[in-house]
């Protein structure tokens, strides 16, 4: 009887099957792993974007596939006062709303970073404007701005008696522009406040204690510690905020539809108006495409001007 001891026994090596070999072959594996992601991106991102850009160079209308017209759509738009007004208002809307959102959002974040009672409840309340569907809050603002039933007018006229007539919020050019900006700020504050609060909480409390011992005032602690340390996250949040605001559609479309007399059209609402409601797909696409340079510029600005600082980078000894 020949006993096999553990030291002698060797497992018979079997040749792997062709499918195992195939998956062990790196190029094939790379393609297989990338395929789902690339497929999804191509279908849902590249195709619509590419189609939109393509349409911008055609005179397609709804029901009739157009022909290639080169830059004609853009040439026409540059002479169109409504388009130029939409460009102006998009920039104005984004600029004022961003300043407002970041001013108030940073202030709120700083308040919430203190030890206040009921802190978690207040934080939850602050998130409310963000989790309410935009159209819902737009309808609420529509009521608030209503010429006849506005609650603000009611308070000023009936309750306080400070005015004899209702306030005109959305029926003349400039008040309408500012009313929409206020609504956008209200909606955008939670995102900014909560993101910046997260940033504030990464700053070690001992830095403030050290600064306190170094003789700093509250303003100096903000100026020399909080603000510089918040800059990187501020840059990211600001990039997102600018993109969201510049491409805003829902608030404006639900409250004013671009009126009165096209004065509150953003590029997105105008593109929709011309492309879908008006049927001029080519022209609408051209308006939408014209947003791209602005967005790229905004992104590059916040990326390079605000983002990575030397002190954040790795432990190089230069």
């Amino acid at each position, binding site marked *: 009887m020949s006993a096999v001891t553990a030291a002698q026994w060797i497992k018979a090596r079997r040749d792997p099957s062709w499918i195992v070999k195939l998956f062990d072959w790196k190029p094939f594996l790379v393609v297989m792993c990338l395929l789902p992601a690339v497929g999804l991106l191509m279908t849902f991102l590249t195709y619509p974007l590419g189609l939109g850009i393509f349409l911008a160079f055609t005179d397609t209308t709804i029901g009739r596939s157009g022909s290639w017209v080169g830059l004609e759509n853009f040439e026409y738009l540059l002479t169109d006062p409504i388009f130029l007004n939409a460009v102006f208002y998009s920039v104005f809307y984004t600029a004022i709303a961003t300043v407002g959102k970041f001013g108030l959002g940073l202030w709120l974040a700083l308040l919430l970073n203190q030890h206040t009672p009921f802190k978690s409840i207040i934080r939850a309340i602050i998130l409310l404007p963000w989790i309410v569907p935009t159209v819902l809050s737009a309808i609420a603002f529509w009521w608030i701005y209503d010429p006849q039933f506005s609650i603000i007018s009611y308070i000023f006229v009936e309750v306080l008696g400070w005015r004899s007539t209702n306030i005109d919020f959305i029926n003349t050019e400039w008040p309408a522009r500012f009313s929409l900006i206020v609504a956008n700020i209200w909606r955008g504050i939670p995102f900014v406040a909560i993101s910046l609060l997260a940033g504030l909480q990464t700053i*070690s409390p001992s830095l403030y*204690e050290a600064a*306190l011992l*170094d*003789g700093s005032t509250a303003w100096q602690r903000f100026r020399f510690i909080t603000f510089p340390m918040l800059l990187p996250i501020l840059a990211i949040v600001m990039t997102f905020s600018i993109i969201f605001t510049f491409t805003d559609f829902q608030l404006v479309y639900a409250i004013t539809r671009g009126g009165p007399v096209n004065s509150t059209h953003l590029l997105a609402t105008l593109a929709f108006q011309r492309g879908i409601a008006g049927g001029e797909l080519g022209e609408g696409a051209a308006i939408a495409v014209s947003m791209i340079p602005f967005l790229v510029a905004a992104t590059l600005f916040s990326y390079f001007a605000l983002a990575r*600082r030397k002190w954040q980078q*790795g432990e*190089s000894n230069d």
Partner: protein
Amino acid sequence: MATVGVRDVRKSFGNFEVLHGVSVDIADGDFVVLVGPSGCGKSTLLRMLAGLENISAGEISIGGRVVNTVAPKDRDIAMVFQNYALYPHMTVFDNMAFSMKLAGAPKDVMEQEVGRAAKILGLETLLQRFPRQLSGGQRQRVAMGRAIVRNPQVFLFDEPLSNLDAKLRVQMRSEIKELHQRLKVTTVYVTHDQIEAMTMADQIVVMNHGIIEQAGPPLVLYDRPANIFVAGFIGSPAMNLIAGDIDGDVFRTPDGTAWPLPPGTRVTPGPVTYGIRPEHLRLDPEGMPALVQLVEPTGSETQVLFRLGETQFSGAFRERVTTRPGDMLRVGPDPALVHLFDKATGQRI
């Protein structure tokens, strides 16, 4: 430079009192170490000295001036934090010059003062680096530099070495001690490491559960610990503490083993705790036969864990002991170096 007085200071967080009336007097230029296990209140006391925590009751004075209501920046103190608290977005120079920048000092004064501190600490070549680009020991030095630049009356250190590796810790320990000898600034240093306390302090304050167990020079604490807590806390390896009774002129454990008492003891018979440091046990042909359980040679000395009856105790011998677990060795305590503590109160007899 200044004296520091702490008089019956109490601290409560809500209804929970963490410091129960602490009094310490620190002489001008002294290096005082607050030492104790985690949660004993030593860091809280330091932060109260710095003004980062309110004082619930009692009085703290720096340089003869009561500072209970004085803002931290006006107390003329500088603090080194456990995590160094360097401003990550500022260079070493800006970190060290920050207090002067806030005070609006002219640039040449800043350069001169930072240069002086950098020279003391050997940081001259690192001034333009950011904290991220420094090693742990360098960051530690920058934190000290930031304190030196301010020319404070009192230095406060909050466990400054606990983030460093063992070797660097020993090196920085002597650097801090040397710095103190050069600058002669009153220093309060918090640590949980009794070796740091023993090696650095002029005066050690041993704290536990919010009270001071004993305060005094390191060797006094080692030679005459006031109670069982200090006896067990100071010294490494820790003192053997054995429960039993005084029985005539010997100490007797419950299993009947007799241990010699210090010469000339006059103690009434009764329950006591018998303390003997491992390094005060001797190999003695006349001694008690004890079973060797564990042998730990460290090169400079050999630590042996013994068992005698029901009692386990350890010994540390300078000479090379060649023994193995299971052997019997005859050991005996040096009777003159035996400590006796009251069993009920824990106080030294």
